[in-house]
């Protein structure tokens, strides 16, 4: 009723206005449709002849040509990833009536293993049916000939020449180089997001991890296309014109693959990581994570048993420990703590404490390694002999906020910005972090007692080996931090022009030079008359270092005896170092999971890496092996 009245009472003028607009809209619609009809007339009458010819020419189809992927070499030109051409036997499922029968039949002509079938079935699940999928890769010439003779029996099956990726060194540096594998749906979205859809038409592989992933668009190249005449059934008859593809750009790494290989060898079957950085540029010399895996397994689609073996191994070979493992730094944290003490004015180098072998705080006794203590300890001695009590008191004096603030400037608890994807942040403990990390209010509170063990690199401290290596490099480089990177330059495949990845100074820390010198001297002391003495006895250069042992398992009371503890609960061994001490060319962090004492298992690895890098000396075991190979 109310509505009716409203409309009846509505002024006629209002309705007239509305109707005027409706009429106007009608005119606009007619005009727009007239425009469309004019366009149709133009296309279908005026240009009809032209388009008829085009439609006939449209027996011409554009076939994309996949560019050859860029090659990856190390700093000396050793090839790490390359391509080779091989024949594959491929099936287009949508063109085949009975897939099982076809595969069965193929098996009578050429060798098709059960593993080939398994892989094919896996690919089938992941792809669209009109894609052609390989049932066999790397056919021999003879097999190609045999199939060609029987081709008429297998509609929808073709032999294709394809480029394959090959990693000549196999498992060496696989965590840095990464691997390519078939493009999946997620990759397609990424390609689309980057506006590369047209360029990837025809491409089947994409970088999944490592350099292959992070430099995907440099390595891929530009697709070309071929104009192919097709018959009424849509089959290609002959090629008419060709726009060649542009090969992907080549990458030259800062990595020294010989160094990498040696480092991986000296790890043996131990789990761990090593990151070696050139302090003056940030270039990564070695990025080790053991155990490694063979990236060649992934290229044609990994077999399921290989995948299960990699995935289910308790040693987690697919985990890049250098970037994604977070470990307490243990005593390798002490030089940084000492630097913090000097920079914040909490300690002077000469200021000494008396170490009774423990530090009491809040009714809890924090014990030192050495029973009875180190006696009178100044800063130099605290690093050389790795005195815990010195750092318990220091951490207590500095307070957690001050520690966290200083350590953040060294890059702890942040991504280092290395040119690989998926780097972990680790944990730089602070009251703010605790608030974010825990949900329950009673867990969120920071206790002063928790600060004490932070001082010796334990507690909530958890950093990635690359963070530790970077911080070491920054100290070696007197406070100038360069972004760690693996790629030295990119070579344009067309022009040959080299684009250098310039050393990028991330930050310049305004440390007092005398403070840095104090720390460096003490770190040299570690290797001459401290915990690293044995590992560096007789080295032909001066190396600065610091050993560390990180607790995996906290023993309540009682002494830690490695032999009594299960292997996976044994301490992690750590070592950080740079050399030569006066003009550092290499800085590194070594971590051996469950390796026990840093001095025993991590420092010798660093020694061998330095020996090779600085003196060209091969470690004993490796040298023998190399000779054996030559025989």
């Amino acid at each position: 009723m109310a509505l009716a009245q409203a409309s009846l009472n509505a002024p006629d003028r209002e309705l007239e206005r509305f109707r005027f607009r409706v009429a106007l809209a009608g005119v606009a619609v007619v005009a727009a449709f007239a425009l469309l009809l004019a366009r149709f007339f133009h296309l279908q009458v005026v240009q009809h002849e032209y388009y008829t010819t085009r439609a006939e020419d449209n027996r011409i189809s554009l076939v994309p040509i996949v560019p050859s992927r860029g090659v990856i070499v190390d700093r000396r030109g050793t090839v790490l990833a390359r391509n080779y051409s091989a024949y594959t036997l491929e099936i287009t499922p949508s063109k085949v009536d009975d897939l099982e029968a076809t595969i069965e039949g193929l098996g009578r002509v050429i060798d098709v293993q059960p593993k080939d079938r398994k892989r094919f079935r896996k690919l089938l699940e992941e792809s669209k049916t009109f894609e052609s999928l390989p049932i066999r890769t790397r056919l021999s010439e003879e097999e190609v000939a045999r199939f060609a003779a029987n081709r008429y029996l297998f509609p929808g099956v073709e032999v294709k020449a394809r480029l394959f990726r090959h990693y000549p060194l196999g498992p060496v540096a696989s965590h840095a180089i990464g691997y390519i594998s078939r493009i999946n749906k997620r990759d397609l979205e990424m390609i689309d997001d980057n506006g590369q859809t047209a360029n990837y038409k025809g491409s089947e592989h994409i970088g999944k991890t490592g350099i292959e992933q992070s430099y995907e668009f440099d390595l891929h190249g530009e697709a070309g296309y071929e104009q192919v005449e097709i018959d009424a059934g849509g089959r290609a008859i002959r090629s008419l014109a060709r726009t060649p593809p542009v090969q992907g750009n080549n990458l030259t790494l800062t990595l020294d693959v010989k160094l990498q290989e040696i480092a991986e060898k000296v790890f043996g079957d131990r789990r761990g990581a090593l990151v070696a950085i050139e302090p003056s540029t940030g270039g990564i010399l070695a990025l080790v994570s053991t155990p490694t895996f063979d990236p060649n397994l992934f290229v044609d689609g990994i077999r399921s048993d290989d995948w299960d073996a990699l995935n289910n191994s308790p040693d987690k070979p697919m985990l890049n420990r250098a970037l994604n493992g977070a470990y307490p730094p243990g005593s390798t944290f002490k030089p940084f703590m000492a630097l913090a003490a000097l920079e914040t004015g909490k300690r002077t180098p000469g200021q000494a404490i008396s170490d009774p072998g423990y530090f009491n705080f809040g009714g809890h006794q924090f014990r030192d390694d050495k029973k009875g203590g180190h006696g009178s300890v100044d800063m130099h001695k605290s690093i050389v002999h790795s005195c815990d009590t010195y750092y318990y008191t220091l951490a207590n004096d500095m307070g957690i906020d001050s520690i966290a603030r200083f350590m953040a400037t060294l890059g702890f608890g942040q991504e280092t910005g290395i040119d690989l994807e998926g780097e972990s942040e680790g944990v730089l403990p602070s009251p703010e972090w605790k608030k974010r990390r825990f949900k329950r209010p009673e867990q969120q509170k920071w206790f002063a007692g928790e600060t004490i063990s932070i001082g010796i690199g334990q507690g909530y401290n958890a950093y990635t080996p690359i963070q530790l290596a970077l911080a070491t490099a920054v100290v070696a480089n007197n406070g100038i931090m360069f972004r760690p990177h693996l790629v030295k330059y990119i070579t344009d495949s067309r022009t040959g022009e080299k684009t250098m990845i310039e050393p990028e100074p991330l930050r310049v820390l305004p440390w007092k030079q005398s403070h840095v010198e104090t720390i460096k001297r003490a770190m040299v002391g570690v290797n001459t008359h401290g915990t690293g003495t044995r590992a560096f006895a007789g080295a032909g250069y001066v190396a600065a270092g610091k050993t560390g042992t990180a607790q995996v398992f906290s023993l309540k009371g009682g002494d830690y005896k490695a032999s009594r503890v299960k292997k996976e609960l044994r301490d992690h061994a750590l070592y950080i170092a740079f050399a030569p001490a006066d003009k550092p060319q290499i800085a590194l962090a070594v971590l051996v999971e469950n390796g026990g004492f840093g001095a025993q298992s991590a420092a010798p690895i660093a020694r061998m890496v330095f020996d090779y890098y600085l003196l060209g000396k091969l470690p004993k075991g490796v040298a023998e092996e190399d000779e054996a190979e030559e025989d």
Partner: protein
Amino acid sequence: MSEDVLHRLWRRLVEHLDGPLLLITGALMLVGLTTVYSATYDASNRLIAQSLNMTVGLAAMWIAAQIPPQKLMRFGVPLYVIGVILLILVFVFGVKVNGARRWLSIGFTRVQPSELLKIAVPLMLAWYFHKHEAVLKFRHFVGAGVLLLVPFVLIAKQPDLGTAILVGAAGFYVIFFAGLPWQVIAGLGVAAASAAPFAWTMLRDYQRKRILTLIDPTSDPLGAGYHIIQSTIAMGSGGTFGKGWLEGTQTHLEFIPERHTDFIFAVFSEERGLLGNAFLVLLYLLLIARGLVIAANASTLFARVMAGSITLSFFTYAFVNMGMVSGILPVVGVPLPFMSYGGTALVTLSIGIGILMSIRTHRMLVRK
């Protein structure tokens, strides 16, 4: 007696339907079915699926037609609020498909909330103007503008330019018919023209590419230009009379991409020629004419602006789609009403027709 029951049942069934609208929609659907058949018969036939879609569409149309405008008005606010909330959820939790975040996963299936807004936005705005009818001030137009802009921006950000344009247009038509002052319209026109260079920088790479390829499709023959090159060849080679049903070479050699969905007009045009196109345009013109007549004779402000907006929305769909296929508008994802394959759009469009019918047939009741 049974005849009497049948008669009453029949009356009940057709009571709120509008003959001319039903006739035109039916004709469009039939043309659409034959074209979908031609576009898909050599791959995976969609004829049955599309028939089912149309059945569902017709049912939705009938139901929409039963709801009197006064009742329909009440859906405005809740539908709009739900729609905007869903859009925000899409923004946060949405599933990415082909690089755009448009879908919301609800366990067993995925929904595309932006579709809902095609109805909810005009409904909301029409309700809004109706509520303030007696005291309509300039600030109400500003308010309506904000109500329109929120979902528009959320959809454009997904990014889904096609749907954003449709929702934006539907909302703008409501504001226009509600009496947006001509000075403002002129001002908006000037502002839009001067903001064009700025908007250019806001577009995504692929959207820019689509506009550039409009000027020179050959610049990207494997990518965005491919659609336009192939669809204009299809149309042009169709000539005046067309190549005949099922005879289109462009179609059947699979040169036309998305040929059963957004580019179905290329298939139709190749096989039916200019005469077919003229007939199709005439059908749309008749549909729009009928819609505008319904709007002009509607009895309340709500009904008027709603009918006007829905009708012009049909125009937008048809014009943008045919313009895109014939190469005078950039490629955006807008289906051709009642022709393109796909259930969602079909149901939305059918509900639109249903609302028009309701406005038409409930007019008398209100007058009484």
